């Protein structure tokens, strides 16, 4: 029996290994059926039942790219980087999960699929941003596509899979270890790209900005550049929201997101990426001033909407059209 693509999956952690000093890889197997194949660039959201620093029970939900071969439905693989400023999700994965544990994940969803009509695929990864490309590579190779991977990292922290990629892909991959003084020259790289190239970028904000700036200088058309930019929600000041329909009040703690707080009090909000890019969680903002942290709404929409997966309140309270 294979699992359907709408209900959450129960998965068993069948293997854990460290693939870089701060990155741990988890192999997951379906326990009530076979997992579904997915498309390159897809991610799943992992539910992590833990507790806050104050000892309150709390479930974190983070999105992680699948990095196994998309056609292999026997297991999924994800890799988690221990974040210095983690709100708990990555700490939970690194310290609380062991082989044999059961986790709950959503079915795969994809916000970062390759553009198959491109004549060349230029993949640019930074640090743990290598993960979505791990599922690109087998498919690009099967399709006989023209591609190049440029992978920069700090060897003292990240750099997962660099050696095996170099071995498998030879010239098609270039690695840059910043800790060894190697630098990816974005301006040079982008300048050389031929007609019909699509560019895919995943990594830290600094890398995304670098690509954005250089591409703008060269006059690259926006539609040829694809960013995977979901970031885990960042903490902020505590605040509270009121639901317009019921008058219910929900308190949002410093280290939880508005979406998590809503879910914890039984309010269901549709969501997919939990990182401010997909648009699923858009919620009406009836009153109050929001601190927008998403990459989805435009300035006009920001007057009357909020993305609760990442955004918070600037004023003490908000009224939501829920």
């Amino acid at each position, binding site marked *: 029996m294979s699992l359907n693509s709408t209900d959450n999956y129960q998965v068993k952690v069948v293997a854990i290994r460290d693939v870089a000093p701060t990155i741990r890889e988890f192999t997951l197997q379906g326990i009530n059926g076979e997992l579904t194949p997915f498309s390159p660039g897809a991610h799943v959201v992992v539910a992590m039942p833990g507790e806050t620093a104050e000892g309150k029970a709390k479930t974190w939900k983070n999105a992680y790219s699948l990095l196994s071969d998309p056609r292999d439905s026997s297991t999924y693989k994800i890799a988690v980087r221990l974040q210095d400023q983690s709100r708990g999700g990555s700490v939970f994965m690194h310290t609380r999960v062991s082989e044999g544990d059961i986790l709950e994940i959503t079915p795969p969803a994809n916000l970062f699929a390759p553009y198959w009509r491109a004549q060349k695929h230029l993949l640019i990864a930074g640090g743990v941003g290598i993960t979505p490309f791990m599922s690109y590579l087998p498919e690009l190779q099967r399709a006989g596509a023209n591609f190049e991977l440029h992978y920069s990292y700090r060897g003292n922290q990240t750099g997962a899979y660099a050696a095996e990629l170099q071995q498998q892909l030879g010239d098609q991959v270039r690695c840059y270890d910043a800790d060894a003084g190697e630098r990816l020259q974005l301006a040079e790289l982008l300048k050389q790209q*031929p*007609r*019909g190239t699509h560019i895919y970028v995943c990594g830290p904000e600094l890398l995304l900005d670098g690509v954005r700036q250089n591409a703008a200088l060269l006059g690259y058309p926006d539609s040829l550049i694809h960013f995977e930019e979901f970031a885990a929600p960042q903490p902020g000041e505590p605040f509270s929201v009121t639901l317009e329909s019921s008058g219910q009040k929900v308190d949002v703690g410093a280290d939880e997101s508005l979406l998590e707080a809503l879910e914890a009090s039984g309010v269901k909000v549709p969501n997919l990426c939990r990182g401010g890019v997909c648009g699923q969680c858009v919620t009406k903002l009836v009153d109050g001033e929001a601190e927008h942290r998403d990459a989805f709404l435009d300035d006009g929409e920001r007057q009357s909407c909020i993305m609760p997966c990442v955004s918070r309140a600037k004023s003490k309270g908000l009224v939501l059209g829920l």
Partner: protein
Amino acid sequence: MTTPVEIDDRVKSRPQYGPVKLQTSQQQQVFVSADANSATLQQMFDECTDIVGPDRCLWLTISADKATMATELATATAALPVATAIYVSGDESYMWDVRNTLIRLGFAPEQIQMLAPLSTARRLFCTHCYTVMEGVTHTPHKCEGCGELLLVRDHFSTLMGSYVGVSINAEDPSEIPAPEALS
């Protein structure tokens, strides 16, 4: 999320051609026409050469015949970088053919700019027999395929670079309206 509603009775699918601006940040500048009869394009080319230098400007004379156009454009643009700005001048249908061919070759729509059409002549697509006619200047126009008298509408298919024609006198074929020049 609220956009003011404006009533506009123009047919929405009819393309509008605004003033074309040089995008000099793009590494390569390419000027395309069927023959050298576009003074505006020539002027832009000269101006561009002054700004970015002749090495980064390319003048292409490309056939209006679709099949020839496809091979000519494929060869002429093979070595161009992603960061290329393209300016096209000619009849409306020619410009759309060039644009569609370039998009198939991997360029993005936003890097291709079309100048104002050099004439009011239209390509016309008969919705009854699918015949495509070039250089139509008046409406109604007798279909060269099925003989139907066609009203030349302002509806434009970007994919075909063509306006659509529909029978103007289906009820009473003896009714023959006086021809009007197209704008």
